[in-house]
């Protein structure tokens, strides 16, 4: 168990108290890891990590502690400064149907898979990495929306699993490092900017987007959110995904 019992902020909880934590099923996350190995060809040079992201403006993302918590044990997980972590397969934790549990309350954070091919310049991702992030995220149950039919987007398909990511235009939300103005796909000579309706959770087509925002795990990440044409096979896995950030030069 964690030594810390006092919370620096309201959204922090002592892990040993465990009331209403923002946890995920360890078993499902291991299933995500297994899928990563099975589909590793999408991102052959990348490793799998999981990432914690804020759900509220006042979520304290500093000094988070994460454990695998089962009936008989609690195993600390090393969290990197960017709030990513790797999991190991542990038979005992699987047997006890353990949870992966940060010391924060439910609905204060969300989760994503983090799969990055090394060596890419800043402001560039690789489409195959994002394809695999979606598949692992769906398999591991990382999305944390709390209302069906959110934005008319993803929720009806949550039960579909990773095959949802193979649709031409899945509405799986990715989050860039910083607020984005544009996202462009580049494969050889071919360049194509995403339409604005594929940025910001589709807000430009939904006049009621602010009403639904509290139910979305993108609540404080809307200006960083984008969808990708993951299932469009005309874009190879090596396609570069280039970001034009709001605070960057044109």
């Amino acid at each position, binding site marked *: 168990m964690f030594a810390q019992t006092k919370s620096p902020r309201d959204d922090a909880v002592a892990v040993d108290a465990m009331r209403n934590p923002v946890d995920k099923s360890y078993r499902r996350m291991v299933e995500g890891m297994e899928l990563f190995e099975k589909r590793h060809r999408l991102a052959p040079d990348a490793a799998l990590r999981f990432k914690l992201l804020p759900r509220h*403006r006042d979520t304290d993302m500093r000094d988070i502690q994460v454990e695998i918590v089962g009936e008989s044990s609690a195993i600390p997980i090393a969290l990197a400064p960017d709030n990513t972590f790797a999991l190991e397969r542990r038979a005992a934790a699987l047997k006890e149907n353990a949870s992966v549990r940060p010391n924060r309350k439910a609905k204060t954070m969300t989760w994503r898979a983090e799969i990055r091919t090394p060596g890419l310049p800043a402001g560039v991702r690789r489409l195959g990495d994002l394809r695999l992030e979606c598949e692992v995220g769906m398999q591991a149950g990382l999305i944390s929306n709390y209302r069906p039919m959110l934005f008319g987007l993803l929720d009806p398909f949550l039960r579909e699993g990773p095959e949802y990511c193979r649709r031409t235009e899945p509405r799986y939300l990715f989050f860039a490092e910083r*607020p984005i*103005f*544009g996202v462009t796909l580049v494969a050889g000579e071919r360049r194509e*900017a*995403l*339409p*604005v*309706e594929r*940025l*910001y959770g589709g*807000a*430009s087509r939904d006049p009621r*987007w602010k009403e639904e925002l509290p139910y979305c795990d993108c609540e*404080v990440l*809307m*200006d960083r959110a984008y969808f990708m044409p993951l299932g469009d096979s005309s874009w190879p896995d090596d396609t570069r995904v280039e970001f*034009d950030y*709001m605070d960057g030069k*044109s």
Partner: protein
Amino acid sequence: MRFIPLVFVVLTGCAALSPAPSSRESKPLGPAEVRSAQAASEAISVGKSTKADVRAALGKAVVVDFESGYEVWVYRERSPEKAKPPGTELVLLFAPSGILAKTRIR
């Protein structure tokens, strides 16, 4: 009296040279629509135009505003009725200062 036939000829000539406006062009623009994204982008200035300037020049936009103070404004070209969306769009970014910071046409 000689002048009247000349005026008549000139006016007739104009009518013959100008194509009749298509139904697409003659229909009034809807909210956040522009006839030409390129022409619209040329009517505003990055680093200078304010939100009021842009609204005066292009009309009402679809606005996506963020807590950071940044705002994204979207204008869409009117597409042929059977065209598959999304059509050509002009996307503007206003900095928290209210000044136009970036534009792009897709």
